């Protein structure tokens, strides 16, 4: 299976291991990730202002390139996924918005075909659940994480707004727990798994974001977790900074279970 693969900027800088292990695991699962040519930043934050077009263009370009390649667009970073999925939703459901975007893109020159939200956007976890199948993930495990108690941390961006993201039940999600089970570990269900980590508030009011993320890790540890798992670089940053629990990316855990974890560490820049 070939998929269009959108790494995003953070995966090239702060979160290299998220990307590195994602690719390693895909290889084992016979999925070939193909990066869109000249992809740009997703926009970073989804601006809900209807007239804000420019910041969403780069997402649309990635979506359009996946459409032209005839493949679903797979994201790994929660933030990229949120922005791209919401932008795609606008392209499908807001004719006025889609028209403006297409008029912008027509200025790019060359032969132009309009884009109207045709591409299927999948988060890496959705790819594993819906296209690859968790049984196939389970079958690829060579070193099951038996005995490990892993707390899945969803954060907000994957789940909400639920109508658009349609990722899982926003109040009582199960996809990450099912994934953890497939790797042979025991999922720890705790209350704060779908609460906010503090997000970008950290740049403005670090104290209040510290409170939020400390509450998450504390709740996970109290529930008996030894590791907190996340898909989001910003969540990882906030949680690691403000809590005692080790926080790892889901791709890293998967690589470990697949026997692909390398001793040499991917260094953070």
């Amino acid at each position, binding site marked *: 299976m070939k998929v269009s693969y959108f790494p995003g900027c953070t995966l090239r800088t702060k979160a290299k291991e998220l990307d590195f292990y994602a690719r390693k695991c895909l290889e084992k699962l016979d999925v070939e990730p193909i990066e869109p040519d000249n992809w740009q930043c997703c926009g970073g934050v989804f601006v809900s202002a209807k007239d804000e077009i420019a910041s969403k263009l780069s997402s649309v370009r990635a979506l359009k390139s996946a459409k032209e390649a005839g493949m679903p667009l797979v994201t790994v970073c929660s933030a990229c996924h949120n922005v791209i999925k919401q932008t795609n939703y606008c392209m499908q459901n807001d004719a006025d918005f889609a028209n403006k975007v297409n008029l912008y893109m027509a200025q790019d020159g060359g032969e132009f075909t309009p884009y109207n939200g045709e591409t299927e956007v999948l988060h890496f976890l959705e790819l594993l659940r819906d296209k690859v199948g968790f049984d196939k993930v389970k079958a690829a495990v060579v070193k099951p994480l038996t005995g490990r108690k892993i707390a899945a941390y969803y954060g907000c961006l994957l789940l909400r707004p639920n109508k658009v993201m349609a990722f899982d*039940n926003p*109040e*009582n999600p199960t996809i990450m727990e099912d994934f953890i089970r497939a790797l042979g570990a025991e999922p720890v269900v705790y*209350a704060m798994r779908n609460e906010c980590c503090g997000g970008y508030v950290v740049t403005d009011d670090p104290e209040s974001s510290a409170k939020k993320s400390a509450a998450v890790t504390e709740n996970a540890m109290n529930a008996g977790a030894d590791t907190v798992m996340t898909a989001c670089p910003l969540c990882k940053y906030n949680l690691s900074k403000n809590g005692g629990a080790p926080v790892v990316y889901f791709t890293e855990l998967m690589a470990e279970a697949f026997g692909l974890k390398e001793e040499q560490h991917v260094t953070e820049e």
Partner: protein
Amino acid sequence: MKRIGVFVCHCGTNIAGTVDVKAVAEAMKHEPGVVFSTDYQYMCSQAGQEMIKAAVKEHRLDGIVVCSCSPRMHEATFRKTAAAAGLNSYMVEIANIREQCSWVHKEMPIGTEKAIILAKAAVAKVSLNAPLTPGESPVTKRALVIGGGIAGIQTALDIADAGFPVDIVETKPTIGGKMAQLDKTFPTLDCAACILTPKMVDVAQNEKIRIFSYSEVTDVKGFVGNFDVTIKRKARYVNETLCTGCGACTEKCPMKKVPNEFNLGMDNRHAVYIPFAQAVPKVATIDPNHCLMLKSGKCGLCSKVCGAGAIDYKAKDEFLEERYGAIVVATGFNPISMEKFDEFAYAQSKDVITSLELERLMNAAGPTGGTLLRPSDHQHPHTIVFVQCVGSRCEACAEKGKEYCSKICCMYTAKHAMLIRDKYPDTDVYVFYIDVRTPGKNFDEFYRRAVEEYGVHYIKGMVGKVTPENGVLKVQGSDLIDNRQLHIDADLVVLAAAIEPDKSARPLATMLTASMDTNDFFTEAHPKLRPVESPTAGVFLSGTCQGPKDIPETVSQAGAAASKVIGLLCKDKLLGNPCVAHSDEMMCNGCSTCEKVCPYGAITYEDKEFRMPDRTTKVRRVAKVNEAVCQGCGACTVACMSGAMDLKGFMNKQIMAEVDAICK
């Protein structure tokens, strides 16, 4: 050529504000056939009607056009006026220049132009009107009440009191409905059973009332005065006339672990059961899904202990056919499912309950004998959080909740909070609310008492999340007045679940051809002036099937529905609607298209002999309309490909004349 009179109404400023009524009256004078045209301030008033009568005499009118409000409002009025002036009442046409003209336009020239066009169309139509005479049909002097809750009970008692026989069809084994499950009732705090069960007994003892419990309506045919209804009497495997309700069978039944619906699954009952002590009829019912004898043929204990020999394992569903003059819908409500409200952890924790479950936990006949205990560990809860509007006023979450206000929750939550504080003063009670809505006699005083005398903590704001953790429920909510987040460790969380119409209402509405709104509440004929009648003649509405309401309101509406039924049953004959379809036999080719589209089953076919031009006879299959059943919807006239079907009062040529007049 007809002699037509046109009467243009001002309706105060309702019409005259945006339509130049004098110009309309003047313009009509030049229409073909119009011999008289005038305007008046209130045409529907006594003076206005006298004016019409006088004009009919003076100008020898044989057709009348009234330019006024919707025909739904005053068509009947002006038909009576015409009849009083010696005309056939169907020689009147209404041009609706209010709802469809003056109310929707803002500028006088546009309004006036449109009013003139509408009046011209009405004149064109009335020129082709023919006198019509309504047929008569007899009235079956018996009423059917569907649903045996407090609404159905009250309606049935009131109808029976006037001397007419009534049948109640109730799907459960006993009548009583939701009210039988309640503990106390607001605002007087009298016990629900104490005021309901005497009424249930009255129903049982009333010679005019028959109760078909454990039964369902499966088919309705016919029309007002003569509904033919099929009632399915589900097999209860116990002979109702023999059973004495002694309860010996239930004591001996070995299947003891069947979730008890009456206590909302919070305890168990036997496979053979009597729902509660005061059930009416007080007879046992065998639950075929759990009875060993019915499932595997091994047991038969109840049959052995039954002294009356009432147990009958071979019983089958029976179907009754009955004829009724009127039908009252009283199908009631249910709380919506809380399964999708994961933010309140209803599915995750036993200690998150609905308000109806709390009623059972506080009821002396409930699973805990009336002592308030947490379902999980049977301990006394010390901190209780009530969450109001769960699924009500929930526009954003339409996939799991309802847009409307469920109306009763503010009052019953105040009642619960007050009763708990009264009985267990060591308990802390919090109520989260969006608004407190307590209109009603002595209602706001009741709520104030909960706050001021009983010290219930009312917090304006919603609960965002409930998390079960180490035996407590962590409640996270916001206090909008203090502008802060609250974290409360609760022992019990009570959700005021929105209420929705019973699931049986939708298929029943289809059978009755009664209309419903998007929430599956039955629609009333007029929201203010005809609140207990359905737009379908002979079908009346009682209780929460029409919209959320509390017990006092339900009982008043039940009485109102009964009085409408009594008014109908007092009549010996009903005048039908003469605007019905008829088929031109010479043009009909017997294709069956009209029969297929008729929603009322009014069209049949017959083989008829026709004389041919060459003096032979030929047998052809032609459509025949049963005028008593036809409702005049016109579906057949549109579907008929040979143009044989026509609707009296709305003939094809009349409609075409209207269109021509408008397009001229």
